[in-house]
């Protein structure tokens, strides 16, 4: 048993040193980020239970029990972006890894041996990242840590206080840190296992179970669930408004994440039916035949957009035109809004990488047909446009749906034509969609070297 584990660990070490290190590094980076954020959540919860919490100066988001739940949910929602990137990163180098696993089967490895080696390849860096998450936590604690002592006045110190988002008077116990690291590592292993669950690895190569049918819009149920919550929250004076808001945001985010494959599929079909250019036709057909891969990469865009759309409504209600507009708005509101903006930008950056990883995998998988397209006379720009359309056809509709779902109901319910600041939500919506468009372009730009390699004539002769 020990000898077998030793052999498998040596094999994994050899695979990592033979080109798997970037993937392992990215897996570890994703789990480190998630682990660090979960440790912050744990610290906030420990702070809530701490009898000495009054003695620490922290942001109202941490100190006020009424909004603390929302803060914790926001931290957990931030984890969605690195987890989505983790799902993508695990698929890096799929073709090479599958060939290697088939070769191992040919050399005498059993299916369970191969599964275990695959799990170790993801699990080891995932757990290592889980432990490295403590460093992320320590860094966040150092930058955003609370200060011991009494509250002092002044608007600049008030801004600083609202940025003290991590309590320092409490600290997770060693076994809690261990549990978080192992738990996040396990999440990485599970993500790896789900990524390869459709594979049948035989000594002759890798085949896949029959593809699932076309995606269905069943996730719309979650979005529909949000409707009565929204009505109760806004129209009937709910007795639990904070809880309602948390459930509403969670339902919208999860609903949009799950709806992405269906949106990709429908958009792919619609574009294919009307395409007049090769990039639109090829990208549309790619989505119509396998919507899930691109949707997996761009789904988080919907979650980002719904939060941005909903969040964009808040600033429009804060300024008072009769008291100098934005002057004098309490940092209690402005600092969290700015923090949400920064977090959304960071999440969009992670999604950009996620889309780039999808682009790379798409290019590696399709190098033969891409090389053939180049040989037929498709220019480098046209081939790049195929890649851009493939992710853009998912990301941009998800962004539009997200901002409409996020801000639409509020604008419909409270949209006052005479309101001096009614333009703010619309501006936030437009900026969000524009940033998603930029993210799509950036992700395609990142994949350019792989596109050049995929269109090389050498790929014309591969079987």
């Amino acid at each position, binding site marked *: 048993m020990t000898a077998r584990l030793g052999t498998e660990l040596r094999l994994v070490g050899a695979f990592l040193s033979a080109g798997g290190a970037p993937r392992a590094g990215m897996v570890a980076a994703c789990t480190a980020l998630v682990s660090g954020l979960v440790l912050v959540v744990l610290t906030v919860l420990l702070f809530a239970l701490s009898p000495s919490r009054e003695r620490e100066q922290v942001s109202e988001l941490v100190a006020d029990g009424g909004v603390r739940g929302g803060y914790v949910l926001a931290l957990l929602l931030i984890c969605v972006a690195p987890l989505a990137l983790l799902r993508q990163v695990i698929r890096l180098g799929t073709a090479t890894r599958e060939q290697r696993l088939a070769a191992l089967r040919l050399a005498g490895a059993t299916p369970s041996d191969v599964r275990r080696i695959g799990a170790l390849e993801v699990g080891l860096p995932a757990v290592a990242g889980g432990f490295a998450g403590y460093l992320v936590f320590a860094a966040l604690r150092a930058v955003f840590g609370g200060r011991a002592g009494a509250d002092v006045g002044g608007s600049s110190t008030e801004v600083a206080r609202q940025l003290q988002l991590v309590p320092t008077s409490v600290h997770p116990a060693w076994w809690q840190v261990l549990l978080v690291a192992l738990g996040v590592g396990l999440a990485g292993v599970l993500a790896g296992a789900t990524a390869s669950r459709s594979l049948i690895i035989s000594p002759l190569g890798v085949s896949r179970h029959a593809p699932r049918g076309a995606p269905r819009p069943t996730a719309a149920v979650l979005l529909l669930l949000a409707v009565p919550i929204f009505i109760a929250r806004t129209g009937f004076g709910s007795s639990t408004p904070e809880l309602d808001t948390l459930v509403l945001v969670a339902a919208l985010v999860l609903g949009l994440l799950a709806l992405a494959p269906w949106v990709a599929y429908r958009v792919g079909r619609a574009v294919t039916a009307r395409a007049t250019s090769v990039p639109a036709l090829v990208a549309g*057909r790619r989505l119509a035949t396998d919507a899930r891969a691109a949707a997996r990469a761009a789904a988080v865009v919907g979650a980002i957009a719904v939060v941005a759309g909903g969040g964009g409504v808040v600033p429009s209600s804060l300024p008072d035109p009769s008291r100098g507009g934005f002057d004098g708005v309490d940092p209690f509101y402005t600092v969290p809004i700015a923090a949400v903006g920064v977090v959304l930008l960071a999440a969009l950056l992670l999604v950009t990488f996620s889309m780039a990883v999808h682009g790379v995998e798409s290019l590696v998988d399709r190098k033969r047909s891409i090389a053939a397209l180049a040989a037929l006379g498709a220019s480098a720009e046209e081939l790049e446009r195929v890649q851009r359309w493939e992710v853009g056809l998912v990301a941009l509709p998800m962004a539009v749906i997200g901002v409409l779902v996020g801000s639409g109901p509020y604008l419909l319910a409270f949209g006052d034509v005479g309101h001096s600041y009614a333009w703010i939500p619309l501006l936030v919506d437009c900026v969000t969609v524009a940033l998603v468009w930029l993210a799509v372009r950036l992700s395609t730009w990142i994949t350019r070297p792989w596109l050049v390699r995929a269109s090389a004539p050498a790929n014309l*002769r*591969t079987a």
Partner: protein
Amino acid sequence: MTVLVQGHALRKSFARTEALRGVSVEIGAGEILAITGPSGSGKSTLLLCLAGILRPEAGEVIFDQQRLDRLGEADRTRLRRREMGIVLQFGQLVPELTAAQNVALPLLLEKHDRAAARRAALSWLDRLGAADLADQVPAELSGGQAQRVAVARALVTGPKVVFADEPTGALDTVAGEQVLGQLLAAVRDTGATLVMVTHDNRVAARADREVVLRDGSVEAAGVVS
């Protein structure tokens, strides 16, 4: 006979391997030329250089009185999609597109109207006895069927020359014979030139002329008897 494609003193290396060592070849308009030779002799490299897909390190490639080797990547690409058809060993169809969409691709790349491109694609599929495959994706096609679709794709623009790299190399004898017969009939009908790489003597025997390569040099050239 007017010379359509000319390669002169072509040299091409990959890492330390010299694939072509000063190969010269002339191909007349409407001619069917077979390039043969053992594995690694430089057959495919020569074909890809003549088609402007690879750029030789030395020597000249002249297509229809134009120096192909002097054109930039974008110009070579445009010329290729207007004037040349390409057939590769494994068909190399775009897996997500239907057979008809694959055949229409070169026309769509040339910004032809979608409906007109589809009509032309269906017409060529019909001509090659593959009309019933129009709405199938490559995964649903046999090797021979996929190769017939690839032949239709190569001919749909009415090219002056078709370059075929082992067009029957991945097919069984019967399917190979069928595809070859259809390819030859189609190029003869249209008056196009055909340059095909093959290691199969039976395929080479159907050409007008044969160029034999060995170790990157022309070993023999002559009319097929």
